C-alpha cells in the first residue's frame, strides 16, 4: 500500500482569512479506488480544504501534488484540467438545458465545425447507462428531474470527463433513503473502476456505509487519518469535537423534559383548522399550546415547509382559518405573523435567512429593528448588550459582533438566525430543519435550547428530516404525507418505527 503514489497529496496546507486561520498544516492523501470521507464539525476546515483542492481558494503555503506532479491551482479550471471534478450539494448545472447538453456542455462532439447532436445523444446514453440511469431521457430538461437524479447527472458529467478524482460535497443532504442507495451504488461502481472519491457528509451512518478511510479535521488542524473499520462511531465523534466520551454521553441524554400540559382547559397559542393553499398543502388541523413542542414528521417534499410558511404568512393561506390565542386572525405576511409574536427560521439559511454582507450584529438585530420600523433605531448601547448576551448564551464563534456573517460556519450562522428571533421573544417559534448541515456540537446545543425555551413557555413547531430528533424533542408529532396532514401522534414512547408505519400507511 505504501508503494502506491496517491492520486492527490496535499502537504502542510495553510489558508488564512482576515482574523481566522482556516487551515493550518493540514496533510491529506487520496488514493485510487477508495472512498475517503473528510470529517469534522462545521468550521473545522472541510469546505476550505475542498476549495483549496478545487482551486477556489489559493493556498498560503504547502504543496499539492496530483499523481506525483506538483500543481498550483489558481482557478477552478486548472483543478478540473488536472482531472478533479466536484459535485456540490446544490447541483451546479443548468436546469434550463437538457440532460445531454449538461453532460457534454463545452465538450460536444463536432462534425465539420457544428455540434453533432446524434453523437451527443449516443455518448450521453452510454454514460447514463454506465450509471444505471437508462430510464433518463437525454433530451429531457434537467429541471424535470428530481434533485437526486440531477446529482447523478452531475456525476455522469464527471464520468464523461474521465475524472480521476471525484469530490462529493454533502451529496445526500436532500435525498431520501432509496435515492441514497442509488447514489451509493454509483459511487461503488466508480470506486471499483479506480476513481478516487472524496466524500463529505454529516450523516455518520452513511459515512460508515460507504467510506474506506477517513481524515478528521478539527479547528483547521489535522486530527488524523484512519481506516473506517478501525474507528468506532464514538471514537470518531470524540475526535471531531475533541471532547471526552463521558461529556459526549451526557450531551446525548440531554432532553428529559416534563411534557407540557394540553387539554380543553388551556387555550392553544395557535390553532389551525382546515388550513391550506391551492397547489401547496391542504387540510391542516393543528394546535400548538404554550410550552409545547410540536414536531412535523414526513418525507422530504411531503409539505412540511409549506405548512410552516402558512403559519408564518410567508405564503398566504386560501383555505381554512387560524386562531391565535383563541382569536380568529388572518396572517397575510411575515410582518403580520411577527406582530402576533411568531418567529420563523427557514431551512434555507443562505437564501432566506442570512444577509450575507452585513455583520453578525446587524443580522442579529434585523427582525427586532424591522418590527420597530426604520425611524426608531435601536440605540447602539442596547444593541451591544443584546448581541453580547446572545453571542455568549449561544456560544457563537467567533465572538465578534462585527464579523461579516457570510464568513461564519454553518452552525454559527444558524445560531445567529436563532438569536435573531429569540431577541424578539416570540410566543411561537417555527424551526424548519434548524440542525441540518451543522455539526454535532452545535446540534446538541440547539436541541437543548429548544427544550429550554419550551420549558419557559414558548410554543415551538419543530421540523426535521431526522425522525429521532423530532421524537426526542416533541410533545406531539403531526405526520404529513403527500401535502396533507394525515395523523397526529401523542409522543408517549413512540418509536421511529411507529411513525414510519404511519407515514407508510397514512391511516390514523
Amino acid at each position: 500500500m505504501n508503494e502506491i503514489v496517491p492520486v492527490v497529496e496535499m502537504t502542510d496546507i495553510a489558508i488564512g482569512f482576515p482574523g481566522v486561520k482556516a487551515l493550518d498544516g493540514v496533510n491529506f492523501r487520496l488514493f485510487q479506488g477508495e472512498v475517503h470521507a473528510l470529517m469534522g464539525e462545521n468550521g473545522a476546515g472541510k469546505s476550505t480544504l475542498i476549495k483549496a483542492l478545487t482551486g477556489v481558494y489559493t493556498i498560503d503555503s504547502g504543496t499539492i501534488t496530483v499523481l506525483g506532479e506538483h500543481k498550483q491551482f489558481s482557478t477552478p479550471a486548472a483543478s478540473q484540467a488536472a482531472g478533479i471534478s466536484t459535485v456540490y450539494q446544490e447541483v451546479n448545472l443548468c436546469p434550463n438545458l437538457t440532460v445531454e447538453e449538461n453532460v457534454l456542455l463545452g465538450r460536444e462532439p463536432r462534425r465539420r465545425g457544428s455540434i453533432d447532436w446524434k453523437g451527443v445523444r449516443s455518448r450521453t446514453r452510454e454514460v447514463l447507462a454506465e450509471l444505471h440511469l437508462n430510464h433518463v431521457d437525454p433530451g429531457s430538461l434537467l429541471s424535470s428531474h428530481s434533485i437526486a437524479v440531477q446529482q447523478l447527472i452531475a456525476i455522469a458529467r464527471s464520468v464523461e470527463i474521465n475524472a480521476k478524482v471525484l469530490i462529493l460535497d454533502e451529496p445526500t443532504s436532500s435525498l431520501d433513503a432509496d435515492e441514497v442507495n442509488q447514489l451509493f451504488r454509483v459511487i461503488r461502481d466508480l470506486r471499483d473502476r479506480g476513481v478516487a472519491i472524496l466524500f463529505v457528509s454529516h450523516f455518520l451512518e452513511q459515512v460508515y456505509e460507504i467510506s474506506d478511510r477517513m481524515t478528521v479535521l478539527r479547528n483547521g488542524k489535522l486530527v488524523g487519518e484512519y481506516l473506517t473499520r478501525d474507528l468506532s462511531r464514538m471514537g470518531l465523534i470524540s475526535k471531531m469535537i475533541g471532547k471526552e466520551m463521558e461529556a459526549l454521553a451526557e450531551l446525548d441524554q440531554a432532553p428529559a423534559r416534563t411534557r407540557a400540559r394540553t387539554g380543553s382547559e388551556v387555550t392553544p397559542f395557535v390553532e389551525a383548522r382546515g388550513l391550506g393553499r391551492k397547489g401547496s398543502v391542504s387540510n391542516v388541523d393543528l394546535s400548538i399550546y404554550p410550552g409545547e413542542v410540536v414536531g412535523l414528521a414526513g418525507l422530504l417534499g411531503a409539505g412540511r415547509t409549506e405548512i410552516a410558511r402558512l403559519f408564518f404568512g410567508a405564503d398566504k393561506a386560501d383555505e381554512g382559518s387560524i386562531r391565535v390565542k383563541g382569536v380568529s386572525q388572518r396572517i397575510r405576511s411575515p410582518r403580520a405573523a411577527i406582530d402576533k409574536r411568531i418567529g420563523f427560521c427557514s431551512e434555507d439559511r443562505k437564501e432566506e435567512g442570512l444577509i450575507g454582507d452585513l455583520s453578525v450584529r446587524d443580522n442579529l438585530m434585523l427582525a427586532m429593528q424591522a418590527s420597530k420600523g426604520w425611524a426608531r433605531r435601536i440605540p447602539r448601547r442596547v444593541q451591544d448588550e443584546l448581541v453580547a448576551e446572545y453571542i455568549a448564551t449561544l456560544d457563537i464563534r467567533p465572538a465578534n459582533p462585527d464579523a461579516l456573517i457570510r464568513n461564519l460556519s454553518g452552525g454559527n450562522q444558524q445560531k445567529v438566525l436563532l438569536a435573531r428571533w429569540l431577541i424578539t421573544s416570540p410566543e411561537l417559534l417555527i424551526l424548519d430543519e434548524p440542525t441540518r448541515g451543522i455539526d454535532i456540537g452545535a446540534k446538541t446545543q440547539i436541541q437543548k435550547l429548544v427544550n429550554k425555551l419550551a420549558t419557559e413557555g414558548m410554543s415551538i413547531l419543530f421540523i426535521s428530516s431526522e425522525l429521532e430528533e423530532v421524537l426526542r424533542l416533541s410533545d406531539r408529532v403531526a405526520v404529513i404525507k403527500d401535502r396533507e396532514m394525515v395523523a397526529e401522534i401523542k409522543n408517549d414512547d413512540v418509536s421511529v418505527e411507529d411513525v414510519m408505519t404511519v407515514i407508510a400507511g397514512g391511516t390514523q
Partner: protein
Amino acid sequence: MKSLMKNRLAWPVIALAALLLLNQIFRPDFLSLRMQDGHLYGSIIDIMRNGAPTILIALGMTLVIATRGIDLSVGAVVAIAGAASCAYIAASPEPASPVTAAMAVLIAVLAGLLLGVWNGFLVSTVGVQPIIATLVLMTAGRGIAQLITGGQIVSVSNDHYKSIGAGYLFTLPVSILITAAVFVLAAVLTRRTALGILIEAVGINPVASRLAGLRSRNIIWIVYVFSAVCAAIAGLMISSNVTAADANNAGLYIEMDAILAVVIGGTSLAGGRYTLAGTVIGAFIIQTLTTTVYTLGIPPEVTLVFKALVVITVCLLQAPKARNLLRSLKAAPKPGTKEKVAI
C-alpha cells in the same frame, strides 16, 4: 497604511487627488483661493458649484442603487421641476417678489415628491423592474416639462430665485451650501435611524429581509421619493443659474453622470453596501475631469475618450479581481510576504 488602503474610499480619494495635482502642475494657481467682494473664488469652488446638481442627484441615486434599483428619470425630473417653478414665476402677478420665489421652490419640490411617489409606486407596489419603471418617466417627463413651458424656453427675472443657483451666502455659493445640507441630512437620516441598515438588507437579500419582517415596500418608496426630491432641487439650481427653464436640455444625460458617480465612489450596482461619501467623491472626480480637459488643452475630439480612460482606471482599481492581480504582480519577487486575499 495598509488598513487605510483597504478602506473603500481609498482609491476614489487617490484618483481625485491625482487629478487635482495634475491640474495644479499645468496651472500653478489652480488650487489657490481668493476673496473678492466678500465671495470666495477659485477653480475648486467652480468645480464644486458646477458639480452641485450632479452630487445632489447622485446622493439620491446611491440609495436607490443600494436597494438594487436604478432611477433613470432624474433628468426628466430636473426638467419638470425647473419648468414648473419658472412657469409659476413667469405667470405670477409679482414675478420679482420673494414670496413668489418661495412658492416656486415649494411647487418644484412638491412636483419632485409626487414624481418620486409615482416611481416608488411602480417599483414597490406594481412590481415593475426599476429600469423599466423609471424609463417611463424618463421619456414621458420631458413631454410633461414641454407641456408646462408650452414648448418655449421660459425666462424669469427674480433675484431671490436666481440666488439658489448663482447666489452667495457666508462667502460660499448657495448651491454648495444646499448640497452640503442635503448630504448631511441624508447621512443623518440613514445612519442615525435604521434606514441605512434596512436599505442595505433589502438590497443584499430581499427574500430574507421579507422573512425577517421588513416592510421593503416602504423602504423602496422612501428611496425613490428621496431621489426625485434631490433631482427637483437640482432642477431648481440649474434653472435658477440660467434664470430660465429649458424643457429639452435641462439635466440632459445627468442620470448617466449620477450613476457613474455612484459607481466610481465604490457602491456596487448589484445593490447592498453603499457609501454616500464615496458618491460625493465620485461626482467630484467627474466634475474635475471636465475641468481638467480644459486645463490640459485636450482637443474636444478626444475629450470623451480621455474621460472614459480615467473612469475605467478608477473602476478597475476598485475591482477585487484587478486589485488581486496588481497585488500578485507586486508580491511576485518576494513570495514570503504574500498578502492574504481580502474578503
